Each structure stands twice: as C-alpha cells, then as structure tokens.
C-alpha cells in the first residue's frame, strides 16, 4: 500500500514538474528575452584596431555606374527566367548568349561562341553575342578608377570592376583614357567586387589592354566565374581574397564579406582607405553587405584617423531596381548617426534612395547626369570625387 502511495506521489510530482518546467521556461522566455536586462548577456565589442596605415588621398573616377539602361527590361528578363534566384549564367544575357532564349543559357555554350576572340577582339565578340543574347542593348556595367597617394608620395592606380557590355565598357574606357593607362601598365591591379554580370562580365575589355594585370577576386567565386578569367585571356596573377581584411598598400585594404547575393553569387569585396587627418573612406561595388555593416565592420576591425568615418563612394545596394521596402527606410533613418562627411553614392543605391538621403540632409555629392546617367541626384558616369583632395 505504501509502495503504491509512493508511486502515486512520484507520478503526481512529475506531473506537476512537467507542467512547471513548461510554464517556467515559457515565463522566463517571455519576461527576460526582450527586456533591458538581457543586455547583460552581451559582451562589449572588442575592437581589433588593425593598422592598415594611412594615405594622403583617394580620388575616384566613375567610369560607369549604369549597369543597365532599362530597368523594366532587366526585371522582365529576371521575371521571365524565374526570379532573382536564377543562376546568372542561365539568363542568356550577353556575352554568354547562345541563341536558345531567356533562361535557357549556360556558361559553357555561351563562351564557346566567343572564346576564340578574347581578349583582343572584344568588339567582334560583342557583335556575335549581340545576335545570340537576350537584351544585349540593355547591358551597361559598373567600373571605376581609383587613384591614391601614400604618405611617402608614391601614387597608385587601381580599377574596381570591369563593367558588363564589352561595347559599353570599351567606350567608357576610351572616354576616360583607361585603355591607355592599362596599355602603359599604369594601373596596378583590377579588383573585382563580386561575380555579378554588371561588375565582372566585361573583364575581357581590361585584359585586351593588359592581359597580365593582377586580379583580386573574393575566394567565393563559382566555377564558371573562375573559368571565365582563364577564357578571357588573363595571364596574370589571380589573388583569391578570403573573407576578412586584406591590406594592400599603406592606407588601403580590402575586406571580403561572405554573403549570399541574388542571381547565384556569393561574397563581396569592398575597399577601405584611411585618409590622413580625415578618417575612413569606403569604396564599394554594390555593398550588398550594406554600408552600415561595412562601417560597423571597420569599427570592429581597423584603426583609422580621428576614429571617424569620413566618406563613401559606390553602389550602396539599397534599391537597384528602384524597388522599395520599409527596411530601406531603416537605413535612411539610421545613416545619420554614422556622420559621414561626403557620400558619393550611385549605381545600385537607387535614385529614390538618393533622393531620400538628400531629403534627410545627408551630404550627397551631386553629379552631372552625363553619358546616359539618368539624374544628377548622385554621381554619374564621368563624374569624379576626391577624399583628402579636391577634384
């Protein structure tokens, strides 16, 4: 009888304990998890303060920020091919068009049509791919020339990205004298921000003039992207940059963010320049990681002048397709606290976003709306910006 009673008591106890455990954990979850007390669990940010040195200035020439010319055509292609997850090499966009139509392409079939012409005959290659591709007239591209000077007076020139359309990139290179600089080996390296069509697919135009130029890519490229480097006639060194900080010369480092990006691309490489007596300047291709993440990463990783974020240049990837989302407003509302002194945005920042930035009173550098850039609300094709130097 007493054994029976003890069994009953044990059962009763566990019954209560089971209810209590569920109730107690739910109660703790509800009361503590979003309370101010939870912040006691967070450890303070440990700044690594990596010393990348300092430089006198950085000057940027916008070779092209117009990655495509007609947003509706681009989005209709994306929609028709199955959306923003579709592998970019399948769209049948130039230069990998094979004549089979939207969403049915492949890198192998596309490159086979033009490989024999790369890199020297890029114009002829484009003539061929124009006939085989979807919306070849819509292709533009993103590229900029970066000029910087070290504290000892040594000057450097770099290219960030190499556009998309061979025809458009070639035209822009000639307009800004990039072709001659490459030919004269004045440009020390080509940095590819990420594998997207509008930043990367125009590389043969760079290699036409300097096939031996060192190329820095994020080490997250897909096999097709790596093969394209070879098929484009590149003969120089390829530096695959792992996620994290990579110092290049005093005052200049790149940082690779391991992030997934639309159209099956992974990883983005952006640039930090530490300008003497001014602060940190961020130069980006698309900045898929977001400018605030880029700034926060700088805060955690590197030491910079005056502990100030001084300027920004490049695409900030807010509304590249002129779409909008309330989360973009979070950026517009929050950017002010980072106190950038000079914002040279364009490209995938989006015109609506630039207008919202301007309305919020941020120091947006206006452009001239030349060479097919649509509005002067931000820096357009052929425009220049300097950080630590007047241009």
């Amino acid at each position, binding site marked *: 009888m007493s054994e029976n009673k003890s069994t009953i008591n044990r059962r009763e106890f566990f*019954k209560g304990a089971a209810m209590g455990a569920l109730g107690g954990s739910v109660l703790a979850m509800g009361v503590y*998890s979003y309370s101010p007390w939870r912040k006691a669990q967070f450890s303070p940010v440990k700044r690594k303060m990596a010393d990348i040195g300092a430089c006198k200035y950085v000057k940027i020439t916008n070779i092209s920020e117009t990655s495509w010319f007609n947003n509706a055509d681009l989005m209709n292609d994306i*929609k028709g091919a199955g959306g923003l997850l579709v592998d970019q090499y399948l769209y049948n966009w130039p230069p990998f068009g094979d004549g089979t139509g939207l969403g049915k392409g492949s890198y192998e079939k596309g490159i086979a049509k033009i490989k024999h012409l790369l890199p020297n005959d890029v114009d002829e290659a484009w003539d061929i791919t124009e006939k085989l591709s979807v919306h070849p007239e819509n292709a533009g591209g993103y590229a900029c020339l970066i000029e910087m000077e070290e504290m000892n007076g040594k000057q450097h020139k770099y290219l960030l990205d190499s556009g998309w359309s061979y025809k458009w990139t070639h035209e822009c290179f000639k307009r800004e004298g990039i072709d001659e600089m490459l030919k004269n080996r004045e440009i020390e390296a080509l940095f590819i921000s990420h594998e997207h069509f509008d930043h990367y697919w125009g590389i043969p135009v760079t290699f036409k003039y300097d096939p031996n130029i060192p190329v820095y890519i994020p080490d997250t490229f897909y096999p097709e992207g790596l093969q394209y480097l070879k098929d484009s006639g590149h003969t120089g060194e390829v530096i695959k940059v792992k996620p994290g900080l990579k110092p290049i010369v005093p005052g200049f480092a790149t940082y690779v963010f391991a992030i997934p990006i639309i159209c099956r691309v992974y990883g983005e490489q952006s640039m930090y320049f530490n300008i003497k007596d001014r602060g940190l300047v961020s130069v980006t291709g698309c900045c898929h990681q977001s400018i605030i993440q880029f700034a926060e990463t700088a805060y955690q990783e590197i030491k910079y002048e005056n502990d100030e974020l001084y300027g920004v240049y490049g695409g900030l990837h807010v509304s590249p397709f002129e779409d909008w989302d309330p989360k973009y407003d*979070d950026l517009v509302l929050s950017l002010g606290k980072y106190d950038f002194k000079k914002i040279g945005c364009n490209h995938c920042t989006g015109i609506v976003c630039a207008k919202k930035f301007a309305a919020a009173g941020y120091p947006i550098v206006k452009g001239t709306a030349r060479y097919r850039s649509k509005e002067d609300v931000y820096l357009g094709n052929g425009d220049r910006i300097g950080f630590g130097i007047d241009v």
Partner: protein
Amino acid sequence: MERYGVGYLEERKLVKRWPQPMPAIVALVLTLAVFYVTWWIFQDSRGWMRMYTPYVGYMYTRWWLIMLIWMVYIFNYWPFKRSWLENSHPLYKGAILTAISVGILVILIKGFFEGLLGNLGLAYFNPGRLLELPGVTEFFAIEYAALACLMFAAIASWLSPAWVVACEEAPWQNMSQPAKGISILVMTFFLSTMIYFMTMHSHMGILYYPWQYFTSIAPPYWERFADTVSGNFHVSWIMCATVTVWIVETIWERFPFKLIKTTWLRRVTAFFGIIAIAWALHFFLYFAQELTWGQAIRGTRRDFAPDWRWLHVGEMAVFFLVPALFITFYCGNWPKRFSLPTNVLVRTLITAVAAILLYYFYYATSHYFLGTQKGFSHPQQFPMIPTIWLINIWLAHHWFMDNWPGWKMVPKTADEIAADHAEEEARLAEVRWNPTLGWGLGVGAVCGVVIYFIILAVLPWAYESITIIH
C-alpha cells in the same frame, strides 16, 4: 441529418497496415517524393512554373494552407457527405479535395484580393494598379501585391485555426454546416482584416515614395520598440502564434487550457494564452539570434538587420511545426504512456531537438536541391516556403487521404467513440490539484527558469562550435 465531416477526424480510426515504424517511413518517403516533384513543378527557380520569386510562391503556399484549414476545420468538409468521406478511396478523395482547395485558392487570390479588393479598395493588392505607378516594374508590382496578400495570409493562418482550437467554434459550435463555417469564416476574416490594418498596412504605406502619411500610420507605431519600421516585427509574432496554435492542437492536445473547466474561461484563456506563448517565443528566438550572431544593427541588411531578425524568428518557429505535425500525424502522438503533462513535455523536447536538427539540415543542404542559395539571409531565402509546402502536403495526406497507404481508415463505432470520451475524461480528472503536484509544479517552474538560463549560456558556445554553412 447529414453531418458532413463534423467530428470526422476524431471519429475515424486509422489502422496501421504494418507495424511502426514502417507506416511512418512510407508516409515520409511518399510525401517527400510528392514534395519534391511538386516543388520542381511549382516553385523551384530551375523548374517549370518557377513561382519562388519568392513572394508569389510564398503567397500561394500560405493561402493554400489556409484553404485546407477552411475546408477541414471551419467547414468540416462541407458539402461532401459523411458517407462519401468514409467510403471513397483515399487517392480519389485526396485528388478531388486537393483540386477544390486549389480552385478556391485561385478564386480567392485572383477574384477577391486582386479583382475585388485591388480594384475597389486597396490598390496595392492588384499588380496591374501598381504598374501605373511611375518607375515600378512588372516584377515588383507582382511581388508587392503578393506581399500584401501574404501578410494577410499570415494573420488568417493564425486566426482561422485559433477560433476552432482555442474558442471551440463558439458561439456557433452547435450550428449545422455550412452556416457554422460561414459564421466562423466571416468572424476570422473580419478579425484578420482588423489586425491586418493595425499591423501590416503601415508596412505597405511606407513601401511607396513618398510615405503615404494620410492613408497609413507612418512611421509605424512599433518603430522604437521593434527597432525597425518593417512589418516583419508583426510577421514574427503572428507566425509564432500560428505555430503555437498547432502545437497546442497537436502535441499538447489542447493542454493546459483544457484543464480549465469553466467553458468561457477556458476559451478566453486559450485564445490569449496562445498569443502569450507566441510572444514569449517571438522574444526568445530574437534573443537567440542576438546571442549567436551579435546584436542587431538598425539600418544594415541581411543577418544583422532587425527586420530580417524578426522575419527569421518566424522562420525559426516554423521549424518547430514540422516535427510537431509529424509526431501527431504519423507517430500517433507518441509517447502516450505517461501522464498528460509528462507526455506533453516529452513531445515538446523531441520537437525542439528535431527542429534544431531540421534547421541545421535545411541551411547546410537545401541549396543543393531546392534551387535556393546558401546562406541564412539571402533576400530570396525563405525557409517558410518549403516547410509550409511540406506541411500542406502532410495536411492533404492526413486530412484528405487518411494517411494512405500506411494506414486504413475505419470509422469508429459508437462504443469506441464513447470509450475515447471516457478516456479523455479520466485523463483530465487525473490532473487535479494536490500538495505533491504543487511541489512538483514549483520545482518544475524553477527548473524551467534554470534551463532557460542554461540555454542562454550554451547558445553562443554551441553556435561557435558548429559550422552550419560551409
């Protein structure tokens, strides 16, 4: 009088054709095969219809879930007669009922949301109307309209089952179909509309430039509390509420609310209790991300953005729903040998462990076979789409096809139904207040709080020790 499917799920006996675990394995393999084939046809970005854009595919997935709930939980299979439900072959029944659910789905989206509401009420439900805005492309016009329908669906997928599970169909529980179904549908749709306006409309209002100050509250009232203007804050807790409703209905067997004997109090407590549990989950899953990835940073994107973190709370929550439903549908709500509270606790623990494993498996491997891309926070990474798609298939299999072929449906006899009721009464009577139970309750509550803090301590270490995405 024709009963249609009233009480059908409770009054059917699913007899295993083989000993366990064979029926569960067969059901899993079969439903996964159907999942993958249909995923390829409808959703996969490499497949046929490529609806995973993502919002179009997500919206149809979510509303299809609600169609299934409406047909079974609210309308009790009306207008199909009980004899048809009991005597038709599961394949035939499944095909007919699934086809009808899809038909209603298309009528609802195209007819009600896009046609009626989008043309006569709120323009953002209609892609054609949105295209008239300068600069909006067709792709985003369709996406924005799908997003609006989707946000409505999130609320409806919580309230539709909640009215049955928590409120026990009151006050229409004794009404015959279709009057009962129509009444509950109108009530839940009305509540969904109200909550939509208070939680999601402001999100849509600031989706356009300039902010639509005069038609929606902008910036939204939750901005400071949630650290974002995005409606994902509400998507998060509403998704948690949806998951909680189903956990209460399945592995919790409506425990602990069914212990309350006073009818009105039980219903009110269940309805708001589910919301309270959902909010606890909502806060905890956000906190879990802060502990593993670090504090969110407003204005940034991807895995550090507060709006994405809130969305991810909903995504994490749905991983709990998958094993919970599997345990109920295919494992007979195992275990059943202990007391009701202990059974519930054991099932909850199993579900939590399985959810963590499923989360790991999804992010480590899904990009190899779903046509998605690796990474937690890719803008097109929506684990709620494949998980709810699979859940929909399970619902169709369990509700429309009686778990065929692993199980055979046999209607329970009157004696068996009476025995079920007696057993349920006995189980409830077993959980009665006594001092020993009180001690257990107190000790258990302390243990629950301690376990919570242990989890908080372990989470950062565990995340650092495991690489999910290579």
